[in-house]
């Protein structure tokens, strides 16, 4: 039915059957490449999606999925040398699961049906489990356990929410058609109390997947223990599925005439997430968990943006792109540094610019990129968010937004420069040997950085149109 | 004319210290040194050799000369009643004040040259107290400017006596005492180095440079005396001759006043000096406010 989904799943099965541990990783870039090409072709020539289709490459999918696909492709390239470094671990499950995640992500992004959306998200959650405990350490299992239970609870809540939404449609006299189109069409016919209940449950449920505070608790553990690419895919891909889910549901709630309540909650939870993330960033002493907190902050930004009406959502889609690409850079370079340093803690990492100069340089540049320093993508998208806030008269929101950005900047720079600057510890000196900064480990993060730069400076018109189309889909009657 | 003006400043300046000493002597019932004593000292010093500290550089000798030139130029800018100023232009008042600062810079720099404890002490006191006296001086000049609506000395120094004049006179007199190191701020002829400001800076000088410093000091005193007189008396409204007389009389009066202050006041403890200077500032400020309001009304 849909190549974007079938292809990776087929790839996953093939990879699972593939005998050779050394050549198996090549599945990732290969499938990724094809996926990217397909995505871009669909982006260039959008297919017509029949309104009652359950799965389809509709404008919203077109606006986000290519970013995920691009991120996955680059991560795939990085995975090859990475997994070669990790010959000691059999990577059959890892590669297969990674490909399955891609397929399910594509499904989730294209899901136009409440149930399908939920199934895809749940499936992604489960498929990511082997990726998390790939390192096979007790810490990894603990992280996985928390990821699974917190995430599972969240997902359970979102299922409950889906049922509530469905029941609101039934109660409003619908035939229980759970496609978003049908629900939105029913509009004011949906029964208010059930819609509100549904919104609460779905926001919290998918918010858990997104990692909005206070449902973020699994994130630092998972990102801290997972390898760089997994972190990148989780932060760049899985979160964006949850976000598009929230966007789709929000438009249904809005069509039911409860948009005000929805926006209010999005704004509140977004600001809370940003503030909490900023506080965490100010104190954390672990540069991989730092990335998790930074991701929480950016989820907060997305949720704030989503609450700011059409211009805000446009900015949010922009930010999904810039955030995913930049986060990819950070996760991979941080992975290199972590590997060279042998520890993620500030207590025993220092002066890495002398040990792994290239990765350190990319890490620092990525830091400035993610903290909205021009001329990288996040700067422009966050400026758009700010503009949307001011345009829609949320001056206080804008002020809080900037304040959180400032403190987040303090925290991030504090950690990153502690890692990069100074004299390296004798223990870490050996790190240079432990990790050779081969082309394969440096080029991918660099490529993402360049992409983020290009995205910011010369935002391609085709993407802008895609975002505009997606906004039009989400706000049918402006 | 130019020659006469320069002669007046250079030749008459050393009279003032002599007069002051005479006044003090009279008050103390002594005969005291002759009025021309300073001239004799200057001539003698001019012929003496120089002992230069091993730590000092040529700047130690050059600085006094620069200071003297600065003071001379400052004096050149000050109008002598009917004779007007040697050079007058918009904002010359600022140049005058900053020339005094230049002179201070040079003397203080020279004082630091020898690395003597007293040089440093004197310089520190000089430059620190100058902060207050300069503020007072500026307040005074501002009030003159506001009162006369002009920013060039010639016009500023022919004011019509207003309500603020007395305050201004008192303030400027305090500044005069402070800037020229007279009791109660400093004792020019003490021999307890710890209590000195100006002398402490000159301790290590000898021969011609010392002569230049002494003469410069006397010229500065004359400058302030003229400034004070001209700021108070409505010289502009008098006939030239009368004006000249009034100016001379005023200067004489000021000098005697200094002498009397020297004889009847005691040196303040250094921690009280800022108080007195602040009073000077306040007096000038009040005169400024009077001038400001006077105009507004």
């Amino acid at each position, binding site marked *: 039915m849909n190549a974007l989904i079938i292809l990776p799943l087929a790839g996953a099965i093939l990879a699972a059957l593939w005998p050779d541990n050394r050549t198996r990783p090549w599945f990732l870039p290969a499938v990724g490449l094809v996926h990217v090409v397909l995505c871009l072709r669909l982006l260039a020539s959008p297919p017509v999606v029949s309104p009652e289709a359950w799965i389809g490459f509709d404008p919203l999918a077109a606006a986000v999925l290519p970013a995920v696909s691009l991120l996955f492709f680059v991560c795939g390239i990085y995975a090859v040398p990475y997994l070669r470094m990790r010959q000691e671990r059999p990577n059959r499950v890892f590669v297969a699961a990674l490909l399955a995640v891609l397929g399910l992500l594509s499904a989730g992004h294209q899901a136009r049906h409440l149930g399908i959306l939920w199934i895809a998200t749940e499936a992604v959650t489960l498929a990511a489990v082997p990726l998390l405990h790939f390192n096979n350490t007790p810490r990894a299992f603990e992280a996985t356990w928390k990821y699974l239970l917190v995430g599972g609870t969240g997902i359970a809540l979102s299922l409950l929410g889906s049922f509530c939404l469905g029941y609101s449609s039934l109660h409003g006299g619908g035939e229980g058609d759970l496609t978003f189109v049908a629900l939105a069409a029913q509009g004011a016919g949906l029964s208010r109390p059930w819609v509100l209940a549904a919104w609460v449950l779905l926001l919290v449920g998918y918010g858990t997947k997104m990692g909005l505070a206070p*449902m973020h608790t699994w994130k630092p553990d998972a990102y801290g223990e997972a390898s760089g690419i997994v972190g990148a895919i989780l932060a760049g891909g899985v979160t964006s599925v949850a976000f598009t889910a929230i966007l789709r549901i929000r438009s249904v709630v809005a069509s039911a005439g409860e948009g005000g309540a929805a926006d209010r909650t999005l704004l509140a939870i977004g600001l809370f997430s940003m503030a909490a993330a900023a506080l965490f960033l100010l104190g954390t002493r672990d540069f991989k968990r730092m990335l998790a907190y930074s991701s929480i902050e950016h989820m907060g930004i997305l949720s704030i943006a989503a609450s700011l009406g059409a211009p805000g959502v446009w900015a949010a889609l922009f930010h999904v792109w810039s955030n995913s690409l930049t986060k990819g850079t950070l996760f991979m370079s941080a992975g290199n540094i972590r590997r060279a340093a042998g520890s993620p803690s500030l207590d025993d990492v220092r002066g890495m610019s002398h040990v792994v100069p290239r990765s350190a340089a990319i890490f620092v540049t990525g830091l400035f990129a993610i903290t909205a320093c021009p001329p990288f993508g996040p700067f422009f998208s966050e400026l758009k968010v700010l503009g949307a806030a001011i345009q829609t008269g949320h001056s206080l929101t804008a002020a809080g937004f900037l304040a959180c950005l400032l403190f987040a900047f303090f925290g991030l*720079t*504090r950690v990153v420069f502690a890692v990069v600057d100074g004299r390296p510890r004798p223990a870490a000196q050996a790190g240079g040997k432990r990790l050779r900064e081969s082309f394969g480990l440096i080029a991918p993060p660099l490529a993402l950085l360049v992409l983020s730069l290009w995205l910011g400076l010369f935002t391609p018109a085709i993407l802008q149109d895609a975002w505009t189309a997606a906004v039009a889909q989400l706000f049918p009657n402006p | 004319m130019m020659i006469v003006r320069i002669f007046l400043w250079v030749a008459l300046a050393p009279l003032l210290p002599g007069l002051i000493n005479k006044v003090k002597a009279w008050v103390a019932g002594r005969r005291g040194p002759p009025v021309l004593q300073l001239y004799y000292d200057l001539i003698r010093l001019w012929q003496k050799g120089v002992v*230069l500290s091993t730590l000092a*550089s040529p700047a130690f000798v050059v600085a006094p000369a620069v200071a003297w030139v600065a003071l001379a130029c400052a004096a050149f800018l000050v109008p002598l009643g009917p004779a007007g100023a040697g050079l007058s232009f918009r904002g010359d008042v600022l140049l005058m004040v900053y020339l005094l600062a230049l002179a201070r810079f040079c003397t203080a720099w020279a004082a630091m040259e020898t*690395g003597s404890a007293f040089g440093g002490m004197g*310089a520190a006191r000089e430059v620190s107290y100058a902060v207050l006296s300069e*503020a007072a001086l*500026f307040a005074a000049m501002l009030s003159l400017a506001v009162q006369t609506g002009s920013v060039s000395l010639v016009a500023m120094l022919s004011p019509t006596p207003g309500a603020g004049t007395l305050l201004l006179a008192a303030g400027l007199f305090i500044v005069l005492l402070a800037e020229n190191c007279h009791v109660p701020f400093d004792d020019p002829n003490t021999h307890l180095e710890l209590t000195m400001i100006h002398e402490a800076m000159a301790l290590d000088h000898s021969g011609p440079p010392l002569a230049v410093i002494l003469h410069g000091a006397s010229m500065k005193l004359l400058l302030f005396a003229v400034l004070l007189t001209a700021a108070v008396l409505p010289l502009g409204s008098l006939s030239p001759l009368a004006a000249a007389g009034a100016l001379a009389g005023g200067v004489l009066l000021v000098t005697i006043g200094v002498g009397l202050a020297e004889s009847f006041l005691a040196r303040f403890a250094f921690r009280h000096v800022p108080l007195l200077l602040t009073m000077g500032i306040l007096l000038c400020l009040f005169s400024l406010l009077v001038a400001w309001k006077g105009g507004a009304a």
Partner: protein
Amino acid sequence: MSGALVFSALCLLAAMGTSAGSARASFAFTMAGTLVGLLAALGVLLGPDDWEWTGAFLVGGERMHLRLDGVGAIFLVPVCVIGAAGAAYARAYWPDSDFPGAAARGRAWWNALILCMGLVLTISNGLHFLIAWEAFALCGYFLITLDNRRPEVRKAGWLYLASSHAGTLALMAFFTLLAAHTGTWELGPVRDVPPALFWLALFGFGMKAGFFPCHIWLPSAHANAPSHVSAVMSGVAIKMGVYGIVRFGGWLPVPAEAGQVVIGLGAASAVLGIAFAMAQNDLKRLLAYCSVENIGVILIGLGAAQMARTHGNAAWGQLAIAGALLHVWNHALFKSLLFFGAGSVLHATGTREMSRLGGLGRAMPWTAGLFALGAAAVCGLPPLNGFVGEWLIYLGLFDAATTRAGFAWAVLPAAILLASAGALALAAFIKAGGMIFLGAARTKPAAQAHECGAGMLAPMGVLAAACAVIGLAPGLVWPAIARAAGSWNPAWAHAEKSPFATLGPAQAALAALAAAAGFLLWKKSRANGLRRGLTWDCGYRSPAPRMQYTSGSFAGIVAGWFFRTFGSERKFRRPHGPFPEGSILLERIPETVLERWVEPAGAAITRLSHAALSLQHGRLQAYILYLVVGLAAVGALVFLEGKP
């Protein structure tokens, strides 16, 4: 014109490119770029019309739009001059032999910094301005932390980065609001925007300009950076903040009280800045605080001009703004000169603490002489350039006072405070010069100091010459300044004839007389017989270096006046008993604003963040509880508040 600017930009890029490869080539490119840029700036200043260029392609969705008018050009001049001088100085001061790697990085960032500052001055599109601004700030950070193995350098660098980013975020808000009101990112004179925006700009740019109390980052950054970097940061970089305030003070409709506020900030910065400078023992900190003072001086002029402008473009406003702009040049020149001098001292003795120096004048006479000249200039003494600029500002203030207009009251305290700031500056620099170059050496390194090479003296000489020229022939610069003032406020475009007609010759005469008198007195003393002997010092047999006044004791009186303001920390044990012993007086002047206001706030936030982190304690049960709490909170938000 376009050709020249493009060429200079390309040269700077080339200099960045070759910075790692060949120091010589990089230097050549830097010189070429800066000099051509300088010519271009002068071309605009002396020519009648502005330079403008609009690119065809979009960057960040906006059309490239560059413009160089009088205001931009007046700031571009010091960028180029100090850019060149600093590059030259660095060749001898930070050679590759001593700083492998770092020196090359230094060259790259140096040229990047100059380029970015040039862009900031020419760009006239809000979005691109933000980009160039942040890039410029980051270049500054990497220059300050060139020697990032030293923890204090990292600390200073981070403080700079943090405060600079705070400013940048304010600017983001400012430009976004501006764009929201005008409907375009294009910059230019605007009418219908709320004047309150000016405050945002004032804060945003003020964080960079470093006026009181936004100066928290300035002392440590300037003290710990390599001296040529301190020179450019202090002489030029903080002027970018001033540029922003000048620029948008000219373009935006400012609040009625803007002039008074700016004057107030200026006066406070002037007095407090120099008071702190006076109290410092670290030479480079002293210079850094002195920069705070000079920014204050500039702001006083600017504020007066702003005031004149809001009240019918009174003519004295032109004098004030002209003085402010001229002081921008002057401060760039003599402050860089002084920082170079400080660098030479540091290079020769390895310490910045004045109480460990002394008597360097004999070992390094050239440095001493140039430093003295710079000191005299920074004190605003005639016949040097410092006086000319302050004279213009004073003239503006006095003229304003003579109008007796009700709104002009602010100039009275401003003038008086400016005067006392000048006197304090004199005190501070007598102290600095005396402690470092005069008297006897206080420590061994000071005694073994050596004169620095021509490579470091030459740039200082050039800057000193510039100071002297502007001082002796101010008429030369008047056209440029007047042009800038005119393009800041079109109402003043008709440049009145130079106010320096008499002052210039007077200064020249003064210089000549002083030189002659000095020469004659020296001759006369020689003729009378010049005997070398121990310092008499009231007859001490063998004056020891320890008997000299120290930096602390010199500043004692002033520090006493400001004791409460500084919040000085003092440890004092009086000598007592017939045979007193072990008496001690320790006084520490804190970074008052930083240590008394900012750091406590920071500590509170840090405590908060640790409290928050303790919630991330790793117990899954609690995590699920948070989830339930979140659910309840969202529910409450929806259902309780949600009822229409």
